[in-house]
């Protein structure tokens, strides 16, 4: 499918304490043949990229609050500008936490309700994929996918009005569910409000999710549902009307 010379180019932000950047880089370059480069948090320029990844980990030690220090890292000005210009941004796990702290997504991620770190495979129900074709174009409404989770602070919270608005606008795109797609308390691994595992911004270009798509991109590691998010981006980039060069810098 990929046209030679038009390979997606992604930047993967790396903060002190990030731990999932190598998995994202591996999937992008080795599994998909994309161009991908790590971008140190102290840099100010993303370069010419088609998408930006905020990976999982413990940026700046997660001190104060998860993502609270990372959102002020120099590279975040460029990430915010890229996101606000409509550029595709995905934040997984710690990256989701950074996106909420930066105000690019509403709500917050708090300590799991049982206070335990949870590392496991997790079933997720896909909702409103049409709200974010950039990241979910290859997924179907109501289907159940399986991705790893790995977090101690993944309890999504927001005030009821915000939650209602997210649901009304179809911006809740992933919920913790049973294998048959039922959203139950027992299937909720962290006590998230309304079982929310992933949301998108109003424009649909910024996705935040606690699960790790980059850890489920090859059947050898137990599943490849995560690869479908990358494939969605690839297709979206190929089909968009004018694949304009993007160069976003904070300076």
């Amino acid at each position: 499918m990929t046209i030679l010379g038009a390979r997606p180019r992604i930047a993967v932000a790396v903060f002190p304490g990030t731990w999932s950047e190598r998995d994202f880089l591996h999937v992008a370059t080795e599994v998909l043949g994309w161009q991908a480069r790590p971008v140190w948090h102290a840099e100010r320029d993303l370069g010419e990229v088609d998408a930006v990844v905020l990976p999982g980990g413990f940026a700046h030690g997660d001190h104060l609050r998860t993502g609270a220090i990372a959102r002020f890292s120099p590279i975040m000005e460029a990430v915010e500008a890229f996101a606000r210009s409509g550029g595709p941004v995905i934040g997984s796990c710690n990256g989701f936490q950074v996106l909420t702290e930066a105000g690019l997504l509403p709500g917050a991620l708090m300590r799991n309700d049982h206070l335990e770190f949870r590392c496991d495979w997790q079933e997720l129900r896909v909702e409103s994929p049409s709200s974010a074709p950039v990241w979910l174009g290859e997924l179907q409404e109501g289907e159940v996918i399986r991705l790893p989770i790995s977090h101690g602070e993944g309890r999504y919270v927001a005030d009821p009005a915000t939650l209602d608005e997210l649901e009304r606008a179809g911006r809740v795109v992933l919920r913790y569910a049973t294998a048959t797609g039922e959203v139950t308390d027992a299937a909720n691994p962290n006590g998230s409000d309304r079982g929310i595992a992933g949301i998108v911004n109003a424009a649909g270009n910024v996705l935040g999710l606690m699960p790790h798509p980059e850890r489920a991109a090859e059947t050898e590691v137990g599943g490849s549902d995560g690869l479908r998010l990358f494939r969605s981006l690839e297709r979206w980039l190929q089909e968009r009307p004018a694949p304009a060069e993007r160069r976003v810098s904070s300076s």
Partner: protein
Amino acid sequence: MRWIAEVHVSLRPGIADPEGQTIGSALRSLGYASVDEVRSGKLIRIGFEAAGPDEAERAVGDMCRRLLANPVMEIATWDVRADEQQDAEGVNP
């Protein structure tokens, strides 16, 4: 002059506090059967320079809004006082 701020960051009422609940059950298991509420939070002590009390107060308010508390789930309260020990050292080095 130098100022000391003590910022208390606590969870908003209604936000579940599993850490506080766990501390509460630990206290009850130690025999403090009447404990019916525990809320956890953070205490952040900050030493800094400011020209006067108004500027000091304003600076701490800004710090809380920009970084120290996330208004989605937290509330910050603070006390600011002149660092008298530092002043004394300044007068009589």
